[in-house]
């Protein structure tokens, strides 16, 4: 009986080792992170944060990942689920950066800030965000000297009076207001 148990233990141990060797903890943590590379956790990118978590940092510092990421990481790390650390931001819906193009002065500061090269443009030329590439990381908003970048809720485009519309239909129709 004892022997059998020992054999079982050996086998399971071997198997688990195999699995962990294939997918190291850092990789799995990195997989759970949203990859927006926003740096809100205080690390330059998601992978460095994943490394840091694997070394013991708290896993509740990722606002763009939402509750799901927190749950996933807690399960992965076998930790109790904690709420998002408010020092690192709030949950919010996925949004993308949109440049108000008539106000852009072509300073290229946002281009340098973008972690995924999602902004097109040259010095003194108008810039634009490639919407499909944008991670919604927010990093381009702060460096813009003329504040012409807005974060727009992308999945459900809604118009309110406080934020300018994502597609300005009126101007596309040539209507002056």
């Amino acid at each position: 009986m004892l022997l059998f148990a020992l054999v079982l233990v050996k086998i399971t141990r071997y198997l688990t080792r195999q699995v962990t060797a294939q997918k190291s903890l850092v990789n799995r943590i990195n997989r759970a992170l949203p990859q927006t590379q926003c740096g809100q956790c205080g690390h330059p990118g998601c992978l460095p944060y994943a490394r840091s978590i694997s070394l013991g940092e708290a896993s509740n510092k990722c606002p763009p990942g939402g509750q799901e990421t927190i749950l996933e990481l807690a399960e992965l790390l076998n930790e109790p689920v904690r709420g998002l650390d408010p020092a690192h931001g709030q949950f919010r819906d996925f949004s993308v950066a949109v440049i108000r193009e008539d106000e852009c002065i072509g300073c290229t500061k946002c281009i340098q800030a973008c972690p995924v090269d999602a902004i097109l443009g040259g010095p003194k030329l108008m810039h634009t965000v490639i919407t499909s590439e944008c991670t919604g990381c927010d990093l381009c908003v702060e460096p813009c000297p003329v504040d012409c970048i807005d974060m727009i809720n992308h999945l459900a485009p809604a118009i309110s009076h406080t934020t300018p519309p994502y597609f300005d239909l009126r101007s596309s129709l040539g209507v002056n207001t």
Partner: protein
Amino acid sequence: MSTLKQLASKFLGHDSVFARRTAGGIQPPSFKEHSLRSRIMSTPIPPQLTIPIGAESSGEITRLVDIGEQVLKYQKLAVISLSAKGRSDVPVHAPTSGVITSIENSIVADHSQQQQLCINLTVDGHDKALPLEPHTNHAQLSSADLVSLIRDAGVIGMGGAGFPAADKLRACSVLPIEFLIINAAECEPYISADEALLRERANRVVLGAEILKRASAAQRCLIAIEDTKPDAIAAIKQALQNEASHQPCCELVLVPSKYPAGSEKQLIQCVTGIEIATGQHPTEHGIVMHNVGTAYAAYEAIIEGKPCISRFTTLCGQALKTPKNFEVLIGTAAGFLFELCGIEANKKQKSIVGGSLMGSELGNDKAATCKTTNCLIAASSNELQAPKEAQACIRCGYCADACPSKLLPQQLLAFSKTLDTTQLLEHGLLDCIECGACDYVCPSQIPLVSTYKQSKKFIKTRRHSLEYSDYWQQRFQFRQYRVKKEKDQALSRKLNAPLQSMQAAEPAPKGQNDEADFISKEQASRDIAAAVARVKARRNEKNK
């Protein structure tokens, strides 16, 4: 089986197709009798129309008229191009003559409650119309001609989804169609527009159905109606008899009265016995479904040559003195219609667009009716109230019995609370049609549908982010690689520079270079400052 059917049809006295039992369903009190007391009325022309031409997300809009322009009734105002979504264009026509005063975003009375771009038309009251091109004998037209005429008339699905009718018909040209089902089930409480339409204008609906049948090249046309609507059934039978000098074009199917019998896939199963698999389209099974209102609009589009400028809308609710069905011009404000029904403003608690189970609350009575506004309810304080505080789920399973998709709402609720996406998907959350039957029966009055909507949204976001995370990671790594490469290149250039200059035997003084650098940097920063100032000035001006 076919002989059995024939026997049954003889026995039942109409050309009957067996209606099959579908899963789930509820039988709420329908409250339709109030609005069916009077006949359909055409509304007087309101002084102002707000004609919706499309939501921001719906597609590209081509405007054909300008502000200040005088337009005539039936004149084409704009075309919504849906080609990006693989659909055909939908034109919008002027419901009456007048002057266009403005074009702006405003709320429209439909389910999404999104703002839509609307053309404001100040009515001149002359109702001057463009000449129409009627095609009294539709048999002369080919199916492609019918489809293009229907498209040009701007006919969309009048049932609620608003899918361009021409597209549904065009899809039929690719696949052979066996059944055209005219959906007259209208199972949702309060809504009686289709029933009223059939009661009074069954002949035209049948003619419209025949047109749709020809346009989609369907072999059989079934008109499916709930068996609790005797007047409408009698009218259809009469119309079919009038029509059927040679051979009846349509068959009448009575479906058992329950909600949601009129949901597309449920009705198809009820009428034909075919269960449309998740992700499949009915046309793949040779079935196409159109609403009664769409059939009527097709009749108008072909026989009268009239574009779609009105629709039938039920006005009901206890705050109205005389609830009734209206033939409403597209763009009429909800409040105008309420006034026509003698609204008691102090009694009205809220307005709802759509039925009591799938409708949504209308924030503003100025909202304009659109082509999919089938019902407007002015609810008094003792009807259709938000449920009291939800109690705990006791897992009674009434919701599972009511669910037409055979889901397990009680389990979905539990998984929604823990955001267990794997289980939610496993339990078919995405098959939920949001009919509200589970909410209706829930003894704990839990807002189930709202919870599922949230979970669906969550899953959608989550899927989106998962799909993208790999890609973003790649992009990020590529950028790091690029930045490093550029740095390396710059470094190597710097290292190589003195070598090159020595080779050129004309070493430029180092300081000069620095100075040039400095000057250009200074210049750049000055430029930027100037640009910032310019933008600020412009913005200030705008704000003024």
